[in-house]
């Protein structure tokens, strides 16, 4: 509203208020209602182009939508999807081959080699890669298909794993009965390379002609996918089908050792290949003393009913003096620390430790049973539901009476050495990034800025480092 008096105005301007005259304005009309136009009828205004009849006709028209042509695809065959899921590709011919030294058995426990890349032995005469593949040591999550040939990083944790093998070979810390057993658990954050360390241990063990028994994924034992039955004597649940598969893998990977080819005839290890006592296989079969271990396993592989006894016979023979050293490895230890998916006849969940194979492994891990010379190695996994009891046991905490933790977990890993797998050091990360760059799959040059950026982003975690270097989605 304009104020009537203007500020600092010497002369009053002449202002006219047009509506403030004597004329009054009514807020109502004085026109007669009869002279108003008639109200328009309600509804849509009639358009000049379209008459209402036509409009109605159009709205009632049924639009038939064309169906998209569906392509009939053939159904999957039995096992095809599992094969696709588990297919391991170890070579990429597009990648540039990198010349690297071979990961030989001389490197066991060698500290100077830490922080360098090594190629797995893959010469024509060497069947190590095939044997590792038979043991399912390679996993799909490990980025093998991007590189020309399988290569691994020698880390400071690799040295520690090598020390275990070295101690067994040198018979350090042997008891009165001459038994040497090393037990260890690889533990760390996700993607820190535990499974890869298992692979490296297996590589060395195979090169040294050890007997390698490996359970590549403990999850297969507890998710209720295999047949199971109760054995009366031990009150354990046997998984005979899985045991047959396991023996098959052991047989394929350890052909040379079981035949005793590489050993001189005077070596006691050769004598082991023959059975020292007679065993009963299944209900009817029996193997006599002096039979070859290989033939025992071969017969057991054909008949699942004999598998469990044959497996026990193998373990029993490996605990006798003169037997070759053994490596018993299991990946995803967490999976056998939670209740299994199996049910007993009363429909109670079966505890994982009541299954025969996990029970046997844990007996070796906790030192209740032992090889004559052997290493028992387990690796935890991060892809598992929470295992509070195992975490407490790994941290060395006692069971809190106010926490409802599984009391069987702690004793099952008692006495095992815990190897903490840490993130990569800068030297190791540099070696890894140089390898990516030389393979031609990482385009950025590894200069100080790139290196620092990728190392900081991945916090030295090997899996994240790969993601930071080569992926969009990390």
């Amino acid at each position, binding site marked *: 509203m304009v104020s009537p008096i203007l*500020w600092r105005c010497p002369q009053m301007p002449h202002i006219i208020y047009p509506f403030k005259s004597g004329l009054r304005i009514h807020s109502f009309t004085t026109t007669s209602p009869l002279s108003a136009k008639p109200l328009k009828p309600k509804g849509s205004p009639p358009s000049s182009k379209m008459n209402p009849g036509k409009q109605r006709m159009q709205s009632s028209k049924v639009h038939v939508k064309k169906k998209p042509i569906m392509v009939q*695809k*053939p159904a999957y065959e039995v096992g095809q999807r599992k094969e696709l899921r588990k297919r391991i590709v170890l070579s*990429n011919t*597009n*990648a540039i081959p990198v010349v690297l030294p071979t990961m030989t058995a001389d490197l066991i426990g060698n500290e100077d080699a830490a922080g360098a890349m090594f190629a797995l032995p893959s010469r024509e005469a060497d069947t190590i890669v095939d044997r590792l593949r038979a043991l399912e040591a390679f996993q799909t999550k490990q980025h093998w298909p*991007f590189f020309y040939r399988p290569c691994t990083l020698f880390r400071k944790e690799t040295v520690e794993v090598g020390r275990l093998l070295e101690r067994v070979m040198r018979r350090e810390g042997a008891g009165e009965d001459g038994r040497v057993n090393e037990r260890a658990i690889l533990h760390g954050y996700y993607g820190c390379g535990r499974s890869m360390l298992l692979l490296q241990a297996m590589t060395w063990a195979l090169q040294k002609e050890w007997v390698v028994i490996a359970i590549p994924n403990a999850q297969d034992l507890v998710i209720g996918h295999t047949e199971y039955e109760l054995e009366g004597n031990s009150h354990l649940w046997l998984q005979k089908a899985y045991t047959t598969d396991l023996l098959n893998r052991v047989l394929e990977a350890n052909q040379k050792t079981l035949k005793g080819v590489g050993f001189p005839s005077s070596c006691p290890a050769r004598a082991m290949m023959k059975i020292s006592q007679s065993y009963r296989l299944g209900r009817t079969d029996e193997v006599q003393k002096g039979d070859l271990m290989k033939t025992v396993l071969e017969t057991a592989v054909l008949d699942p009913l004999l598998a469990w006894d044959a497996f026990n016979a193998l373990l029993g023979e490996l605990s006798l003096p003169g037997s070759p050293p053994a490596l018993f490895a299991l990946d995803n230890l967490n999976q056998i620390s939670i209740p299994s998916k199996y049910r007993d006849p009363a429909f109670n969940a079966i505890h994982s430790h009541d299954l025969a194979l996990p029970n046997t492994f844990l007996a070796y891990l906790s030192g209740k049973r032992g090889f004559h010379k052997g290493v028992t190695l387990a690796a935890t996994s991060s892809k598992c539901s929470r295992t509070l009891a195992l975490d407490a046991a790994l941290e060395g905490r006692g069971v809190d009476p106010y926490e409802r933790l599984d009391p069987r977990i702690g004793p099952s890993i008692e006495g095992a050495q815990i190897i903490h797998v840490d993130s990569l050091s800068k030297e190791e990360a540099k070696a890894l990034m140089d390898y990516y760059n030389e393979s031609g799959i990482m385009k950025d040059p590894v200069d100080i800025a790139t290196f620092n950026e990728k190392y900081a982003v991945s916090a030295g975690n090997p899996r994240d480092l790969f993601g930071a270097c080569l992926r*969009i*989605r990390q």
Partner: protein
Amino acid sequence: MLPRTASVRSSILRILPRHTSLAPRSNPVLLRNFASRYTPPPTPSKPIGPSQDVLPHISEEGAITAGIMGGEGLYPMPGVPIGEMLRTDPTALQNTPKLFKGIPGVKREYSTTATPIEPPLPEAPADIASSTAPAPAPTPPPVSPDAFALTIPGAKYPLPKLPLPSCSHLKHRYSTLLEQVTNFIMIGGRKAKAESLVDQILANLRTRPAPKPREGTPLLPGTPALSTLPLDPIQYLQTAIDSVSPLVKILMLKGGGGAKQPVPYPLRLRQRRRFALTWISAAADKKKDRLGFAERFADEVVAVVEGRSSAWEKRSQVHKLAVVSRANVIIDPGRTVAPSKIRFPIAVL
């Protein structure tokens, strides 16, 4: 109606405080020129010297003189090279300055342009000024941003170089092509899923055998050798998508007589890529094998580069129709577009 007036309160008219520093402004552009009668006008920085007199070339001058005098000039043509002259006339060598004798026919390596040499100011000769007057304070060298970055106390790394590269922005980390492919694949806003699918596509392209070149596949010119593509999967994807992308789309517009007529319409880069992506994914979905999306898509990308994808047929179909209906192209005279903004060569049609 009377003109509206507005009263202004005096409080509004007060001078607002300005957020300026008290230090004198040093920017000469912002300084206002000060002119006074008593101040002499500034001297020009470089006075025109006598040597800058505009005179024609010496041979031209000779020719003009000869024209005036009615005789023959010294040289028939203006601008005869000195080396040539010396070679033809042996007597000229005696009269030439010493300068040219040593280097006949060779261009001088130094300039002979007359530059005005400013005489030293009479009131302040250089030697006296340096001895008597106090030496002016040495001006500090200009600090470059890089040098400043290196001298931040306590910093581990120098400041990043400016301007930052385009990929350094959090939301624009990837190339525009990858972002478009990701968004094209995305369903229901599940971007993480789409990104991992793109990852799988790129991993598939990395590990497949290199595409075999086929005659007659109109790949983009400048495509690197096909054998090198698997090691650079983004380039691989870009080659496929940019090669099959159409230049135009066909709009069916109502023409005269109520009939619809096809009108080719140029597309921008992003639109072209979208057409290519639609065709590639449509061809991938028609595959008979049971494959995952990433595998299907990667298969089709390889097929595009090898020239056996159905996307090529769609592209040539669009282009043929565009060529046929090129007479219908609307060139709107009322629409003014800067010549630099026109991306599409209409004459190609």
